[in-house]
């Protein structure tokens, strides 16, 4: 405790009227507190620490789920799915198939796709 604290406490004590009801109540209550303090055990009750740690673990799980929002999960899935499609198509038709400008004679994925559909339609009609 520093000197200014000591001085202020002394000044407060001097200011206190002995007949002051508030300070009389404080004096009595302090004695009650002292009696109850001695009867309280300061050791954690059985399983208290285990209960706290179980709540802490549960809270950490909730926080982990909260940190990654569902929208984020769906968003990232969509990004990975489209990247996988692009990779598969480029393996199947060659990387140039995805380019917008096609040199004559190169495979154009869009035209190739349309041709495949047309072929399927005609073969279906022929079957009928």
């Amino acid at each position, binding site marked *: 405790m520093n000197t200014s*604290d000591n001085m202020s406490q002394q000044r407060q004590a001097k200011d206190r009227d002995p007949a002051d009801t508030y300070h009389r109540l404080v*004096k009595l209550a302090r004695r009650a507190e002292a009696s109850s303090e001695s009867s309280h055990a300061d050791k*954690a009750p059985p399983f*208290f*620490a285990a209960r706290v*740690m179980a709540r802490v673990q549960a809270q950490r799980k909730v926080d982990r789920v909260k940190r990654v929002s569902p929208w984020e999960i769906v968003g990232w899935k969509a990004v990975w799915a489209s990247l996988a499609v692009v990779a598969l198509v480029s393996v199947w038709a060659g990387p140039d198939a995805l380019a917008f400008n096609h040199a004559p004679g190169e495979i154009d994925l869009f035209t190739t796709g349309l041709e495949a559909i047309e072929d399927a339609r005609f073969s279906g009609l022929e079957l009928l």
Partner: protein
Amino acid sequence: MTNAHDAATRHTAEVEACLARVRRGDDGAGNELVELLYPQVIRIARAHLPRAMSEEDLAQEVFMKIFAKLDQFRGDTAPFEHWIARIAHNTCLDFLRMQKRRPELRYADLEENEVEVLMNEHSIRERTHEAAPEELAAREILEKLFATLSPADQMILRMLDLQQLAVAEICQQTGWNASLIKVRAWRARRKLQATCRKLQAEGQL
């Protein structure tokens, strides 16, 4: 004195070792840390316990906050004990804020034994192990009086007058400014002294 100092040093070293293990992700050390910090946390919780809340529930809430904020503790601004005390005090303050404040205390709100203690000068008896009835009644009246104050004022008066902590200690434990504590305590005491006078005047009518 030396023994007490040695015990405190040993306790601090144990807490620090345990804290390091918890930070490395050792869950078993978490249980040990709770056991080591329990006496400090429960003393603060007990001192500011809001009505209708058990001290164990309040202590659990304090520990939840401690573990949630453990990564934020750097150790360069305040020792771990002060950091724990601040979290405990702030948690108590949050719960006191949630509690409905009593606008005014009337004479009719007091029990018969409380009226007796308020109106009569009791001679302070010899200290016994058990609390005397007038001491318990005085504590009840004080609880009712404190309930008319703001949560922060309640905390300050409890620490200054009931726990008899020095202003410097309260500053360390709460992080509040010393002049703020003194001014708030002075105003709160004046308010309670006026309430006591008003109650006594009502009782004499």
